[in-house]
């Protein structure tokens, strides 16, 4: 399941709802990411995240389908917030349920790598020095490349 919305994300509520949809799954791995307080150019006042519907949704849905084809998953949930956020706000929440915990860990990890590097989002940080759009980080690309390397090495 995928939801992209400007509403705040309540990670605990989402985890409990996810858990009750997948009872007795064995294991659930979640990742929740918060807007960081510090930016390259000082303290963050706000973060603005922009999506392009339905391209953003299609890309994430393809990544979910890819994860489901790689690992035996009982359920997957991706929530992404867009619009204006403050430091500490939850920007992303991913949950993967599987009988075997290794599959749940790997799937959540894989989806986060996609979301942080390839997902169709543009983001703008506002600090005391002004606002600027953030370009991709090299470290994020390195994370995402782990999954394709596995197939070729």
């Amino acid at each position, binding site marked *: 399941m995928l939801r992209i919305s400007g509403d705040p994300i309540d990670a605990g509520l989402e985890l409990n709802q996810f858990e009750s949809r997948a009872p007795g799954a064995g294991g659930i791995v979640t990742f929740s*990411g918060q807007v960081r307080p510090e930016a390259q150019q000082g303290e963050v006042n706000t973060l603005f*995240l*922009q999506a*392009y519907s*339905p*391209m953003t949704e*299609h890309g994430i849905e393809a990544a979910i389908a890819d994860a489901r084809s790689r690992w035996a998953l009982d359920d997957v949930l991706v929530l*992404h917030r867009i619009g204006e956020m403050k430091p500490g706000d939850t*920007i*992303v929440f991913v949950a993967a349920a599987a009988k075997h915990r290794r599959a749940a860990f790997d799937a959540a990890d894989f989806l986060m790598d*996609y*979301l*942080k*590097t*390839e*997902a*169709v*989002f*543009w*983001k*703008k940080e506002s600090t005391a020095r002004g606002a600027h*759009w*953030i*370009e*991709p*980080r090299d470290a*994020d690309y390195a994370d995402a490349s782990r999954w394709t390397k596995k197939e070729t090495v």
Partner: protein
Amino acid sequence: MQKILYFGRLSDVTGTSEEMLSIPAEIETAGALREWLDVRFDASGALLDPTVRIAIDSEITFDTAPVGDASEIAFMPPVGGG
């Protein structure tokens, strides 16, 4: 009239993230549209940057793609993830 979208830092250059536009008939391809809009916005090449991809009706495409039948054309700087 066709809808043109400018994402990320491009909206700072164009001053808008979305507009309805009548593209002149002589602008036949995505590449020609880039050049015409870059001049129109006095964008100093911001729209010509090869890392800026063009999507026609939600499909990433090449500069050779025809724009005549497009209902929505998007200019997309590199995506940085969420």
